[in-house]
């Protein structure tokens, strides 16, 4: 990936700076509003990742890597899967079946709420990390 001289693409750089926070915000919205409307971990993860990918396209790989180093991504990838699987293990320990969210709280409704929240968060984290590291992987080739 070529790093562009800073003087060129001024417009793109400014627009990107403006856009990135909103993209991240929208990603969070899709993630956490997924309980009540359309949304969820997969979509949110991809939206969240696009913010980093957009930043990487405009400002270059070096600067993006300073924000989100590949070693952190590896942790996040594993963490997301563990959050998902861990929810399953916790429900099993609390006496329910695998991923039986009812066991998470006294009230089954709250249990379902917490369970789906944790699982979707795990999915979101992993998808973000995987998407960004795919971008890193391909972009760092020549």
């Amino acid at each position: 990936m070529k790093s562009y001289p800073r003087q060129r693409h001024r417009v793109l750089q400014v627009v990107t700076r403006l856009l990135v926070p909103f993209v991240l915000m929208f990603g969070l919205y899709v993630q956490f509003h997924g309980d009540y409307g359309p949304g969820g971990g997969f979509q949110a993860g991809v939206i969240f990742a696009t913010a980093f990918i957009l930043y990487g396209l405009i400002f270059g790989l070096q600067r993006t890597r300073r924000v989100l180093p590949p070693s952190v991504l590896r942790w996040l990838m594993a963490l997301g899967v563990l959050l998902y699987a861990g929810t399953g293990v916790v429900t099993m320990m609390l006496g329910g079946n695998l991923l039986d969210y009812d066991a998470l709280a006294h009230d089954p409704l709250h249990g379902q709420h917490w369970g789906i929240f944790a699982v979707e968060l795990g999915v979101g984290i992993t998808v973000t990390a995987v998407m960004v590291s795919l971008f890193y992987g391909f972009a760092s080739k020549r």
Partner: protein
Amino acid sequence: MMDQLPALQVMLPLVGAPLIILLRHPVWSWAFATLVSVLTFLVSVALLLQVSDGSIIRYSIGGWEAPTGIEFYIDQVNAGVALLVSGISTVVLVYAYESIKRSLDSSRHYLFYCGWLLCITGLIGIVITGDAFNVFVFLEISSLSTYMLIAFGSDRRALVASFRYLVLGSVGASFILIGIGFLYAATGTLNMVDLAARIPDTESPRAVLVAFSFLTVGLLIKAAIFPLHGWLLNAYHHAPVAVTAFLAGTATKVSLYVLVRLFFSVFGTEYSFGQLFLNWVLLPAAVAAFLSMSLVAIYQTDLRRMLAYSSVAQIGYIVTGISLATQTGLTAAVVHIFNHGMVKTTLFMAVGCILYRTGHAHIPSLDRLMSRMPFTSTAFILAGLGLIGVPLTAGFVSKFTLISALIEQGWGIAAGLILLSSVMAVAYIGRVIYLILFRESRGPAVSNEGYREVPISMLVPMYSLLALSLYFGIFGGQSLSLAGSAAETLLRGYP
């Protein structure tokens, strides 16, 4: 806790995989993967003991009862296959340490073992799930990690082999996905027990027919059944040999299990073999497989490639048993799935030992290997005899059952062809055995003197698997009675 065993069966390797990513240390990641694999194996032993009296475990995920929710459905048949997968995985993982240490850069070891755990997650998941769509998901988990494991091969051709397998494997999986879609459209359910109940009185038999065809073709690709076996040869040849040993014993066997489960339990024996004449598709393919592939195997100069061709031929035997759709035929198929899994894994492990010391598996330069690597050679010879089907080995039990099943059905010609193919197996295995035992090396002595026996951590797993296959050869009655009751379960369909 005993109630949670079906979930643990899949969750153990699934949780283990990301933990290995965090661990990253080459030796510890191996140790941890082995530990997880051993635990998985213990869980499958416990599950098999629970269902050995013919009972069935139905475990609903998330507490949602089937057919609304997803369930794990475990009976004698798939508990056995899960045991095969986790057992072979454990044995080969112990073996893999030295072999992988030599062939792979140590900074990538953790990725290898992570992929391995994901692969057994997928394979065991396919086996024990009771939900048709879950089969697809687990199939892709195992396939994607398999592509990765194959690409770890030291030769650059491993990359191309992996890519070809990816293309064909994805097409196969997509066909399975289409098939599942049509099944859902025709019946409105994805639960396999529920599907079996609803298929006979569906309103759209044509959609079921389309689903049946797509599923069959997809699974034929995945199980490497004769005309669709192209991916297997290069993949087995160029993958790291530990991966080949593992895949040869498990991956195609799991696809065959799904095939059997769908034909007999979900669609029903009557529908698959009575109405749709599946046996007239499978039997010619199987016969062509074992005749042509055994013949081609004779002319191979690379040991791995020879065994890969032989694998396709052996799958042909299994499919022959399936296509009979009788009690004896299916028993032979089930028993051969296990026996061939053990024998072929042992053979590939022996090849791995040869590769470990000599760096190649070129058949003509194996002369007098016996004097240099006696233990490896003995293991190869004994397992080779098992592959041929010499009496008192595991291969004999299954081949004998298969031939008697064919004669029982009045298909004497096919039985004769199996004998012919066995003669060819004598030719290709016998040739190697002859070289190993007797032939004086021709030409200038290659720098052979340095060859020593391989480390004990490679010999012990190889010999334990060999001992197991010999045990099942000598006491063939036990495995036959187990397989017989499994076949009975399959033919009866879902209760």
